[in-house]
């Protein structure tokens, strides 16, 4: 076998993998399709995406095929003489009915996925996510039925990305790597740590303007809106680091507030949680200040910050 043969095989494998989007939870160069994701639910959008894409490709081949045949056969330069007919009721009924049937099938599939997503009950853990210009805050509200207190932190763009992304910084985005994976603009100083195999309920809101919390590997995004608390859930199957970004335009640094979710085995998570609680415990009351959302650290804190009041929930 020549090296050329091997290379071709490698190419074919790569192309198949790019389309399948199977193994990759985080963006990969040349990725062509949606990720399957790593949660109980994330295969729903992936599956729907593939089915809908397949349907569109088949319809496209039929319609564009007919069009190209027509453009080839019925050219004046080939001596085609225009026919006179201008309607055909049977045909029109057929091509109104067939799309309706296809749509009903797609709607049925989509409705199932939607219903399972809307059910946030029976969660074993609750995390509150708050979007700020331009960072995220995570508060651990409850775990296995026990209310948590004082476990919460801000999560913002890592220092290396931040230095590199400055206008004309002269630094190379390709050099920003963690474990060989390029993390430019998709890494944070402190990730959200969660256990695998646990139904986690996220309550999502914002402190200034609208943001959107999106980790493709979890299969969904949910807007973070000041004054409204949205809910969503996930149940991550595999440990790993999953990266995402803010998906709703939120001002000048909208492109620079990534999300990193670190999913770890339950035991490891419980250890981490205990550590966090301990660190928060012995502080004298005067020291509690830094635990607050700390908008003071952001020089660009918006004038509307007092609008935060995320308690006025009206949606589930």
């Amino acid at each position, binding site marked *: 076998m020549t090296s050329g043969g091997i290379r071709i095989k490698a190419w074919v494998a790569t192309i198949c993998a790019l389309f399948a989007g199977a193994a990759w939870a985080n*963006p990969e160069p040349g990725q062509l399709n949606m990720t399957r994701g790593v949660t109980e639910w994330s295969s729903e959008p992936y599956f729907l995406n593939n089915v809908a894409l397949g349907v569109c490709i088949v319809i496209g081949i039929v319609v564009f095929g007919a069009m190209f045949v027509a453009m080839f056969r019925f050219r004046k330069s080939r001596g085609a003489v*225009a*026919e006179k007919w201008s309607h055909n009721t049977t045909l029109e009924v057929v091509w109104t009915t067939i799309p309706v049937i296809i749509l009903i099938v797609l709607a049925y599939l989509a409705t199932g996925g939607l219903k399972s997503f809307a059910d946030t009950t029976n969660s074993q853990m609750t995390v509150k996510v708050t979007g700020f210009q331009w960072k995220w805050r995570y508060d651990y509200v409850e775990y296995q039925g026990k209310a948590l207190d004082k476990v919460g932190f801000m999560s913002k763009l890592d220092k290396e990305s931040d230095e590199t992304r400055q206008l004309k910084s002269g630094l190379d985005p390709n050099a920003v790597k963690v474990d060989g994976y390029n993390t430019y603009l998709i890494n944070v100083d402190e990730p959200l740590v969660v256990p695998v195999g646990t139904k986690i309920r996220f309550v999502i809101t914002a402190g200034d303007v609208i943001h959107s919390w999106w980790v*493709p590997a979890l299969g969904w*995004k949910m807007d973070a809106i000041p004054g409204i608390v949205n809910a969503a859930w996930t149940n991550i199957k595999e440990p790993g680091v999953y990266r995402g970004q803010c998906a709703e335009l939120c001002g000048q640094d909208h492109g620079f507030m990534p999300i990193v979710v670190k999913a770890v085995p339950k035991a490891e998570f419980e250890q981490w949680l205990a550590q966090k609680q301990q660190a928060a415990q012995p502080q004298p009351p005067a020291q509690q200040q830094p635990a607050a959302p700390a908008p003071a650290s952001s020089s660009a804190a918006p004038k*509307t910050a007092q*609008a935060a009041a995320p308690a006025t929930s009206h949606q589930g």
Partner: protein
Amino acid sequence: MAHAATHDHHDDHHGAPKNFFVRWCMSTNHKDIGTLYLVFSLLMFFIGGSFAMVIRAELFKPGLQLVQPYFFNEMTTMHALVMIFGAVMPAFVGLGNWMIPLMIGAPDMALPRMNNLSFWILPFAFTLLLSTLFMPGGGPAGGWTMYPPLSLQGDSVAPLVFAVHLMGISSIMGAINIIATILNMRAPGMDLLKMPVFVWSWLITAFLLIAVMPVLAGAVTMLLTDKYFGTSFFNAAGGGDPVLFQHIFWFFGHPEVYIMILPAFGIISEVIPTFARKPIFGYKAMVFAIASIAFLSFIVWAHHMFAVGLPLGAEIFFMYATMLIAVPTGVKVFNWVSTMWGGSMTFETPMLFAVAFVILFTIGGFSGLMLALVPADFQYHDSYFVVAHFHYVLVTGAIFAIIAATYYWLPKWTGHMYSEFWGKVHFWNSVIWVNVLFFPQHFLGLAGMPRRIPDYNVAFANFNMISSIGGFLFGASQLIFLGVLVHAVWFSKKKAADRVWEGAKGLEWTVPSPAPYHTFELPPVIHEDELAHGHVED
């Protein structure tokens, strides 16, 4: 013959005024005002296009090389506002102004003075809007959708709101004029169901405009009072709701999308039968499909908001309603293909753009169908997949149709043929580069790149670079278009026949080329076989 009457009458009637100011600024002539609209739209197309060039240049490779993120946001915001309100909408109004009276045998628009006003508002609106870029505090940077609270952080809320009000007033007056013209000024024998599909599409579009532009005006006025007068319509701390704005905005915004595509459907329905030399397939179905799409556009607005946390029932309703749109849209595409089937086709530039429209608009429709599926939309929403989708619908849809219409009717307007060779060069460059520009954006979105970001992870680098190269070349291709237009208007020696295209039917081809300053001062006598849809039985 129709133009015989026109000629007889011409001897004792004045032509266009000689004075430049009187002719163009005080015009009440539908043809001159149509020209003004089209020239304005072309100017805005290049201004909005230059903003797009800045965007694509910054996105050429990872890292910030050219502009600060805030300026980048100004560019995305202004690109959208200029292209939507400055380029696409005025182009359709210009085409309507020029062609509707000619197509229905009317001497002019019903309300010529208002016609003048509705055009001349626009240069002021856009001067105001564009001037914000040079003001301290900068232009609007919260996206063309103006979502509060973000949009209220800017310093240009007032000029933005005032500019939007002006554009809205202009559009409403234009729409009233078009409805009044079509309903009152058709020549005897031009029954509603004998009108060209383009006229039908504009009649329906005009009703959409009147229905939704006031809604937009209301929404932006509430932004203005929230910013400056202490109200809390969209401020949760004061008892308001930021999501309310999105509901109001998209109640305008979704019909707006169809305002930008229905006249395009009309144009394509004129061009394809002409070059297939065969009547449009299913005329009544085509008209009914446009009307159903227009109706459905009012009940699908929340599909732009699937990620705001809508209740389950609302998500299901808006998903189903959105999917329904695929049915009438499918009917239109099938009918265009059937019109070609059994025809005797030639492929002059307008036909090439029309054929590209049918294929590429349909691709935009496919991604639209995918976006309608809520669970999948949880991934697509606000990603580059959406950017790819709406550029397929608006650039290869609306703008390709406008370009097709320009090539199709230009000889009638100027009396000269454009250069077919350079028209084809323009076409092939446009159609290739526009796909290089927008197709890779599907992949970027699927891989997880959010829209409206000035910089990105290196995983997105290769497709962004391809897209930017396509963007620069697509932009440059439009300079060819400019050249073809300048040549056709001032330099072309080739006289156009009255019936410019062999297979062309309809009243506009019965008047001389160039169309005289006044046409149909006496209503034409309509012969059924002169009309594209003279013998409608089904």
